């Protein structure tokens, strides 16, 4: 059978008799808790390292007595809490201010619970509600921290495989360039050269420029017959472009043309570094 929570008549509940922290009603706690009867130096370390703050200490007090966190007997817990605070002060431990703030909060809750009972219809909140919420909130992260500690982790439980690679060397990857960057760069050149304002340089159709490059490429290996540079399938426009390209190349002295006999075939050859 379940025991009622928040019950202070501890003698009626066998499991609470087993608790070293059982407090007999009405008898003020003047002694050190029995389970803390250890040398004062060790006790100091114990207290400092055991509790992560007032919430942690309260949780400890509650858990030691199997009390339900939702229905803590506030007077009892307050008394026990204060005995710890006294103990810590007696041992001249540096007591974080938060412990004293909590002591004040407990006293405040206790006093509110002494107030006369309001009408039954009154929906007044349990004065302990805020404390209970905080205790629970802290408790779940305390538990989460314990779970985290249990997770297998690198260095302690797991070790990453890193095998050497004898042929290791660091290479350099060339940077990327976008068309926008390229165009921005060119736009700046044009602006600087004031090409647009003066119209000193006529803008040429790109297709002629491109054809110049391809004609040049085709006649790099040696003489190519002039007519073979044209692709009839490209139609009139294509042929004209090729012709313009050849003329432009001639003008720029990048190709040379030879004709061995009048009306004989014309040969085209790129100017080369040799000769």
């Amino acid at each position: 059978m379940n025991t009622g929570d928040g019950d202070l008549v501890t003698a009626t509940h066998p499991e609470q008799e087993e608790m070293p922290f059982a407090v007999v009603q009405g008898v003020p706690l003047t002694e050190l808790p029995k389970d803390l009867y250890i040398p004062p130096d060790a006790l100091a370390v114990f207290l400092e390292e055991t509790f992560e703050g007032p919430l942690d200490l309260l949780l400890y007090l509650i858990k030691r007595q199997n009390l339900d966190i939702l229905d803590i007997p506030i007077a009892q817990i307050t008394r026990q809490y204060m005995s710890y605070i006294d103990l810590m002060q007696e041992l001249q431990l540096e007591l974080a201010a938060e412990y004293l703030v909590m002591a004040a909060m407990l006293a405040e809750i206790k006093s509110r619970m002494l107030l006369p009972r309001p009408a039954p219809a009154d929906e007044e909140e349990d004065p302990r509600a805020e404390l209970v919420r905080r205790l629970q909130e802290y408790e779940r992260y305390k538990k989460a921290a314990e779970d985290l500690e249990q997770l297998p982790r690198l260095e302690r439980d797991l070790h990453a495989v890193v095998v050497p690679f004898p042929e290791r060397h660091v290479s350099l990857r060339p940077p990327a360039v976008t068309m926008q960057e390229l165009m921005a760069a060119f736009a700046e050149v044009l602006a600087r050269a004031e090409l647009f304002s003066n119209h000193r340089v006529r803008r040429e159709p790109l297709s002629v420029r491109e054809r110049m490059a391809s004609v040049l490429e085709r006649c790099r290996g040696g003489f190519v017959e002039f007519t073979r540079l044209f692709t009839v399938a490209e139609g009139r426009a294509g042929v004209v472009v090729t012709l313009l390209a050849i003329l432009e190349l001639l003008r720029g002295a990048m190709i040379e043309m030879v004709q061995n006999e009048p009306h004989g075939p014309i040969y085209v050859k790129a100017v080369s570094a040799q000769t």
Partner: protein
Amino acid sequence: MNVEELKKIIEAALMVAEEPLSLDRLEALFDLGLGPVPEREAIRAAVESLQEDYAGRGVELKQVASGWRFQARAEFAPWINRLWEERAPRYSRALLETLAIIAYRQPITRGEIEDIRGVSLAPSILKTLTEREWIRVAGYRDVPGRPAVYATTREFLDYFNLKSLSDLPELSELRDIEDINLDLFRESPPAAGAAGAANEAESGDEAAPSPPAEDDGGQEGGAEAAEAAK
């Protein structure tokens, strides 16, 4: 490149790399300009096939937050740890609690962490966590003082062998004080047993209304009132 070759290259790369490799990074290895890059699906299949190959071995291929990594199985840690003189670092409860709060409640300010823990936070804790690259400043909250908000990193997940935050152990449920249906000022509150309530907390159920059969509430209520009167 055939499947076997693909697998071998991926195996070698994963073992040589100092950090977990994502599929993106694995894919980039093949982008040599020497021919077609393997399909992403082929790479994924190779990784999974490797994972099976190593199923019964001393090391395993594990997927963590930032990718895949080979690691020695946890069960062999007692032997493996003898390779190093130094013990793995231990972390204080304060640090682990802070880390847990950030992990579950991110993004969160220092003040909010302190509220939850009920104590002020030693500056060294956030510093240590940041230096370990487990947490980072994820932004600033637009309130007076513009406090930094902290979040966990991928390195945190990698270190704790997790793929994502949702792989963290579940947070225990909060129960509402109203749920126990206990009216402080009533003569005979329906008793919700302490042990029962504790069990419910374990299973995460909504605290059930107390069984109507149990009728020793009167006495308890009286005791409560007596205590409250002191």
